[in-house]
């Protein structure tokens, strides 16, 4: 089944030439005004311009070649010149948070965890040039808003007997063959999820048998004319777990009562669309899975994984032209409203699925997503990160770089690093800590992991502004939010068969050095006649001079004879003078 027939395979096409997208105005000015219009643009009467003409040289030399297996092998190749790294595995960190804090010395029953997930990243033809509005932002922002709403009633859920645990998971690297979700599933099978510790109090491991159901939010921005979203299921899954799936669908649809969102059940014969849940099903095919998307058959998003996946097109920037920056930030866009409705429905469904009973009236009221938060998140991720929400939610260390950032942070997963995460993952982690964590009274230096109880993670963030000045309160957030590696198991498993295609094997090539740098050069190119004439002139000069000098050196004594006349005989000629 082709889900994106218009766009399938477009990024893998080999164009054979480098392609650069210039977005800096001064660069575009140079190309157009100092190069093309000045030298190349045809005259009004259509005659071509004379040489010299303006040309550009595009250089995108990459070090890796052929495929990952070859590249990794070559990186390990012995060389006297030192390390020879050619490529690096891609990845980042997944973020997740559980509602309950079951420690490892207690039991976690089978089928007791509800997993709800979304993807963070996107891909594009051009580096750092895309906003991924529908591809991933709508999905994970909906999930974050649902999380915020649900955690408002966390005490009620935790007090309920036999409540199922709810885990919110944000997968990174999904655009590259599901790096994050395959990594999570692998660590679940190895028993190292969520925390890979063997001593101290830590969270009980979650493995595939513990998962009761899996709900995933995919693209939810481009709703069709009726404003519906679609609930997809896997036909094989239906064969074994039909009753449960039906219960999930009914529950989700019930949760939308009174809300401005419609969830329709997609045709049962359709396969599951591309989703992180696929990785879970690959490992264990009887986990009930429902995926929520904005399309039934073909993607409604014409700009999936593209730099044209713009917020304007999903009504996430419907500002009137005279709004100030601060007002734009607070303006609740159409998309924000729609997402808030969806998040509310999801929160209510999760409450019911976990506790087993529908929420009562007051709880239902509390379980409402805050559309203001949603619009703030959309603004910060899609328009400018230099916004109040991010400023409150980052650590003081990161706040500095936030001040100088203008463009949205990139949605590219990047190269895996065990120590660091990129901005997207860090910000989502911080938001999760803020929405689900408790503020504790610890100073910045004390705000770190407790040796005795490693279930909780601590994060120090700037917090809200104190009064009128620039000073911020500074919060220490204690939460159950954790990161886990999003690194393809192919790079972890010893002796993995690279040809098997089981896990993602994406690596990013290295590049660099003086002569190999990524660059575009503009210059003039002379006409062939001028070049050839200079060369010929040079050769003529060379040949002529050879002939003349040869002739002169042969005849030198006859030409320069005058010295012998009038300067006396040889004997008065001392060699000295």
């Amino acid at each position, binding site marked *: 089944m082709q889900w994106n027939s218009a766009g399938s395979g477009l990024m893998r096409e080999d164009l054979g030439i480098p392609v650069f997208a210039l977005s800096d105005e001064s660069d575009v000015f140079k190309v157009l005004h100092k190069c093309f219009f000045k030298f190349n643009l045809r005259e009004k009467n259509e005659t071509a311009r004379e040489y010299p003409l303006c040309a550009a040289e595009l250089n995108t030399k990459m070090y890796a070649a052929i495929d990952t297996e070859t590249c990794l092998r070559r990186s390990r190749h012995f060389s006297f010149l030192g390390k020879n790294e050619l490529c690096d595995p891609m990845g980042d960190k997944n973020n997740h948070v559980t509602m309950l804090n079951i420690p490892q010395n207690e039991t976690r029953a089978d089928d007791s965890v509800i997993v709800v997930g979304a993807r963070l990243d996107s891909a594009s033809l051009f580096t750092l040039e895309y906003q991924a509005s529908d591809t991933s932002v709508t999905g994970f922002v909906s999930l974050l808003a649902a999380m915020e709403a649900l955690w408002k009633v966390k005490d009620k859920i935790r007090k309920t007997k036999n409540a199922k645990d709810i885990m919110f998971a944000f997968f990174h690297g999904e655009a590259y063959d599901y790096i994050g979700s395959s990594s999570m599933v692998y660590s679940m099978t190895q028993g190292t999820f969520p925390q890979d510790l063997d001593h101290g109090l830590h969270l009980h491991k979650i493995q595939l048998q513990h998962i009761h159901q899996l709900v995933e939010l995919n693209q939810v921005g481009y709703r069709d004319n009726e404003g519906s979203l679609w609930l997809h299921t896997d036909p094989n899954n239906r064969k074994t777990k039909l009753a449960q799936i039906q219960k999930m669908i009914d529950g989700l649809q019930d949760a939308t009562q009174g809300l401005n969102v419609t969830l329709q059940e997609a045709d049962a014969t359709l396969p599951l669309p591309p989703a992180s849940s696929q990785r879970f099903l690959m490992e264990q095919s009887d986990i009930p899975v429902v995926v929520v998307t904005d399309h039934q058959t073909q993607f409604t998003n014409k700009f999936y994984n593209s730099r044209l996946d713009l917020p304007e097109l999903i009504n996430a920037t419907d500002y009137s032209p005279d709004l100030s920056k601060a007002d734009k930030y607070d303006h609740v866009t159409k998309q924000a409203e729609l997402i808030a409705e969806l998040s509310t429905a999801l929160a209510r469904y999760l409450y019911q699925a976990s506790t087993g009973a529908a929420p009562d009236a007051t709880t239902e009221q509390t379980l409402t997503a805050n559309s203001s938060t949603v619009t703030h998140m959309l603004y910060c991720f899609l328009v400018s990160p230099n916004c109040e929400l991010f400023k409150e939610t980052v650590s003081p260390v990161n706040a500095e770089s936030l001040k100088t950032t203008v463009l949205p942070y990139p949605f590219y997963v990047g190269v895996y690093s065990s120590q660091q995460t990129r901005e997207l993952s860090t910000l989502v982690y911080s938001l999760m800590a803020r929405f689900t964590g408790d503020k504790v009274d610890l100073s910045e230096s004390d705000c770190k992991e407790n040796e005795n109880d490693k279930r909780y993670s601590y994060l120090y963030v700037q917090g809200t502004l104190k009064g009128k000045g620039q000073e911020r309160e500074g919060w220490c957030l204690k939460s159950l939010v954790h990161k886990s590696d999003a690194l393809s198991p192919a790079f972890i498993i010893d002796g993995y068969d690279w040809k098997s295609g089981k896990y993602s094997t994406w690596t990013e090539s290295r590049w660099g050095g003086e002569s190999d740098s990524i660059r575009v050069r503009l210059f003039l190119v*002379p006409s062939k006649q001028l070049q050839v004439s200079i060369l010929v002139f040079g050769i003529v000069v*060379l040949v002529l001079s050879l002939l003349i000098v040869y002739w002169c050196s042969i005849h030198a004594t006859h030409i320069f*004879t005058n010295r012998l006349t009038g300067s006396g005989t040889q004997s008065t000629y001392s060699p*000295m*003078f």
Partner: protein
Amino acid sequence: MTVMEFFGCTFITFGPPFALFLFTIARDPMRVIVLMASGFFWLCALLMSSIVWFAMVPLRDHLAFGVVCSVLLQEIFRFLFYKILRKANDGLLAVSQQTTEQHVTPKDFSNRHIMAYVSGLGFGVIAGTFSIVNVLADMSGPGTIGIEGDSKYFFLTSACLSLCIILLHMCWGVIFFSALDKKQWIRVGMVVTAHMLFACLSLVNQASSSDNSEVYLGSLIPSYLLLFGSGVAAFLTAGGSLVNLKAALICRRGRYEIE
């Protein structure tokens, strides 16, 4: 700008000096040594000029000042090399006579003009190299000059002017040394003046641009006229004459067995 322009300009600038080196200097180790030594003296002059330029902070942007200073220093170092060469004449002669089977003949020292010519050429080659080699290095890429508005004949003009300075130095070497030998101070002054004239003429090139390439002719034509004049003067100084030249041209055959 392509390899073609690179080779063309290299051949233009270094063709005649290469021919001169190949046929008149290469076979004789003593001449090669004197060539290298005089080149080194020119480098010293360049070093001194750059120190002076560096020291004169407010005048750094004024090209004319640097040019005038450099010319004077070069001529001073030419004078110094003359002194050293004459003083070392004895020693060099003794060295050259030790290896009896070699081709070195005392002729090199009996005809003073030969060493003057070699030292002039040495000066010239290194001066020309410094003048053109950076331009050549930039030439071999895919593009050419002009996107910032400069004239497209820059490379050709640079090569021609570099050739001119190499040959001019060679001529001036002969004239200068002979004038010092005979204590003809007027002639020494004329060499210095000619050098200054050439250098200042090249300042005219600064006014060129892509629309205004004719400016280059303003420096090229006088420079080559100067070269012709210096060449004639050097030719006559070294003992040549029009009569001899005509004789050699006409009676080409059967003449060289006399030597």
